């Protein structure tokens, strides 16, 4: 890469840091327990908005994996999300009424928290509807993975977003608090993903899955990106650029092997398509706070009116991570 290119990327990263610095005043602490973050602790970061129903299972899932502290930004919830989280002893929560979109979809807020509290920690940045699955996740806690990544001198871990959906219309089986969402959304698309390489940022651009198949079949270019790098051994000089799809410095995006081998990777099971989705989509239409002018949601809105069934006879029913590995959606790499 040319020197000018390098300077540009650095400038971009600095800009991200500056934005984060400017937007920190939008955050007001509700419960600040960051003093309790132990050295080496694995930290989870998330932005939430009206997720009260989903939170109990989400918290349990990640506590079981070995997340030790949750840093959460609450974006103007009114369903008790804030109060619920403030009560948890391993959660630090900030609230804001500012614009989600202006904060680059929460990235600025989280960048600020990452720079401030996550330096030197393995840090997992996920949404409330994203559940990390990695090789051996049934028998080995997250700490085993991060220790192994440390020993291998790897700084970032890739986990592609895997959209999960129920059979039949989404409204058919309502989601109850505390329930495993994948009891309802059990199905996924196993092999319709397209991958392109972005040489400028060294990242991959993955698209496909049920959303591309159903809502973007005539305009696949606009289908949502599924590549994610949610687990990073954070340094205060890092920054997420576009959600968790892309990082700077760009070496962190090199989560794939270019010479034929496979690096270890996981999946983020995406529990988006539940009965709560229609409500979210409707709200999003009025708020217009999502990526690319909520283009994605506009596409959903049209299709959702007809109560679509994302399921098809080639949908795959989720069993465990080994299944995802065999299907080639994730890999053990050389972790055995």
């Amino acid at each position, binding site marked *: 890469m040319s020197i000018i290119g390098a300077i540009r990327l650095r400038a971009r990263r600095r800009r991200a840091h500056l934005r984060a610095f400017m937007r920190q005043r939008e955050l007001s602490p509700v419960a600040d327990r960051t003093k309790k973050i132990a050295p080496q602790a694995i930290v989870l970061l998330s932005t939430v908005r009206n997720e009260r129903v989903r939170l109990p299972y989400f918290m349990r899932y990640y506590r079981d994996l070995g997340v030790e502290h949750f840093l959460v930004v609450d974006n103007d919830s009114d369903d008790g999300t804030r109060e619920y989280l403030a009560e948890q002893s391993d959660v630090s929560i900030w609230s804001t009424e500012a614009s989600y979109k202006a904060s680059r979809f929460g990235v600025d807020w989280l960048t600020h928290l990452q720079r401030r509290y996550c330096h030197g920690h393995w840090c997992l940045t996920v949404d409330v509807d994203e559940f990390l699955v990695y090789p*051996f996740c049934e*028998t*080995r*806690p997250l*700490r*085993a993975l991060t*220790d*192994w990544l440390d*020993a*291998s001198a790897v700084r970032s871990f*890739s*986990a*592609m977003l895997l959209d999960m959906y129920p059979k039949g219309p989404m409204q058919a089986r309502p989601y109850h608090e505390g329930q495993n969402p994948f009891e309802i959304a059990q199905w996924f*698309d*196993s*092999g*319709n*993903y*397209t*991958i*392109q*390489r972005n040489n400028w940022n060294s990242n*991959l651009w*993955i698209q496909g899955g*049920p959303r*591309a*198949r159903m809502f*973007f*079949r*005539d*305009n*696949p*270019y606009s289908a949502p990106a599924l*590549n994610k790098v949610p687990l990073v051994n954070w340094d205060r000089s890092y920054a997420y650029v576009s959600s968790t799809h892309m990082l700077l410095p760009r070496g962190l995006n090199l*989560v*794939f*092997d*270019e*010479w*034929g*081998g*496979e*690096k*270890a*990777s996981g999946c983020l099971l995406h529990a988006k398509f539940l009965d709560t989705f229609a409500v979210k989509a409707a709200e999003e239409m009025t708020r217009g706070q999502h990526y690319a002018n909520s283009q994605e949601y506009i596409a959903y809105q049209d299709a959702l009116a007809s109560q679509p069934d994302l399921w*098809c*006879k*080639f*949908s*795959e029913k989720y069993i465990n991570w080994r299944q995802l590995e065999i299907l*080639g*959606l*994730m*890999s*053990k*790499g*050389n*972790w*055995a």
Partner: protein
Amino acid sequence: MSVGFVMLCHTALDRAAEVARHWAERDCPVVIHVDKRVTRLAYDGLVAMLSDLSNIRFSGRFACEWGTWGIVAATQGASTIMLRAFPEVRHVFLASGSCLPLRPVEELKAYLSTRPRVDFIESVTTEDVGWTIGGLDLERFTLRFPFSWRRRRRLFDGYVKLQRKIGYKRRVPPGLVPHLGSQWWCLTRQTLSAILESPDRADIDRYFRRVWIPDESYFQTLVRQVSTNVESRSLTLSKFDFQGKPHIFYDDHLQLLRRSDCFVARKIWPQAEKLYQNFLHGDASGQATAEPNPGKIDRLFAKAVERRIKGRPGLYMQSRMPNENYENGRTAAAYSVFEGFAELFDNFESWLGKVAGTRAHGHLYAPDRAQFAGGETVFNGAMSDSAAMRDYAPKSFLTNLIWNTRGERQCFQFGPADRQEIGWFMSLDPNAQISVISGAWIIPLFHSNQNFSDIRREAARLQKIEADHLGVLRSPWTKARVRIWSLAEFVENPMEPLQSIIDEISPRSLRRLTEAPRLADLKGFGQFLQNLRNQGMQPILMGDFPTGEDPNPTASRRGRPYLVK
């Protein structure tokens, strides 16, 4: 007579203490070396934890940076104490803080007492075998390494390069034959003391101080001078991956470790509670006293390394995105592409599916939609038939299809009327079997009810596209199995080429084709071509059809197409 353990520790001291206690309580003396870089507080904690045991000693501390002399110095110091303080020890076993005994100490003692003079140390000459995983081997002994590999990687590499360039070489002391091997050994008192009390030790140490990774060469080299009975293997189960770092064992390896019958394994993840519980406190006696047999574990790790280095052929995913020509297989399995067959034969797809027992698709790259077999709108892996999605990433479409249907051969039709972008990719793919009847695309035009001027224009366009495509298939870079017939050639004797294609698709069936696909009606075809010529369009790809005389195919002939009547 007993065995004593020398332990080198630097992290997870509580686990090291647990293991040391296990051995000490079973009447095996232990000497512990703790890395100097460990804090005083942690060190004191360890000492306090083990203070109730009389047969544990702590040796003088050295900084053990990986690849440097410190580790050997630590081993020497601790071994000296072991030999001096515990005269009953006959074998000294070198272990690390992350080692875990897999079999009861009694079994190890019994094993060693039947082999009282044997030194278990992996020791391989540098000249014959590439023991190391990447990096240096003989040069470890002949170059100088003043820079830290961990912290000054560039200087380290640069200095090695410089020395190679100017041809600098250290002299190996006379009498020493460089050997390499695993750091973890079990030596007899005789051998170990002979090494440690050697009159030349000062000189030898001075030499090895500057050798790269001396812990994998110091004892391994010297043992050859003093021992009469070297068994070149390590009693410690320790596997290295392709980066040269040890594989780590977790709780889910419990059964695997049990069955390995090895005495000691490293390295164990410090939080593998189940492993520590089972092997340190569980009742493991009553097992057969078998020879160590790490075969299963070897295979597991060898597979893991292979996956990391070679990956699964034909897979493109988030953590495997090979550069072009490094794919180790562009696609996952063999497939067949038929060009012109569906045009020449009326029922080719259904015939093919029946005869070859494969999945026979239509034109997957047709402009309007991907024509999956059976008219499906979605296919394996939930692939969509949308032309827009396919054309958005034509390569992904093909590689996904082949990956999703592993175990079932895929066949599809292709032609100049289809999207052409995939042409190069297929021709460079050794998995592709491409059979072309050139010029057959004209048959649908021949049958169509269009104005002749439109037919002429369309024929000229398609002919140009197919000529380009054939150029690709005939290029010297092509790796696919390509067969090309002109239409005239093929029509004359269709069964023979069909038979050889089918034989290649399903070599085991070895059946003669008894049923031929139905040839399209070609009455008046020669005249049709002549009309095109008369209009100024030169149809060349079809071969020579005599005007006026209709082709007289022998396709209806049944039975053995190879028989000469």
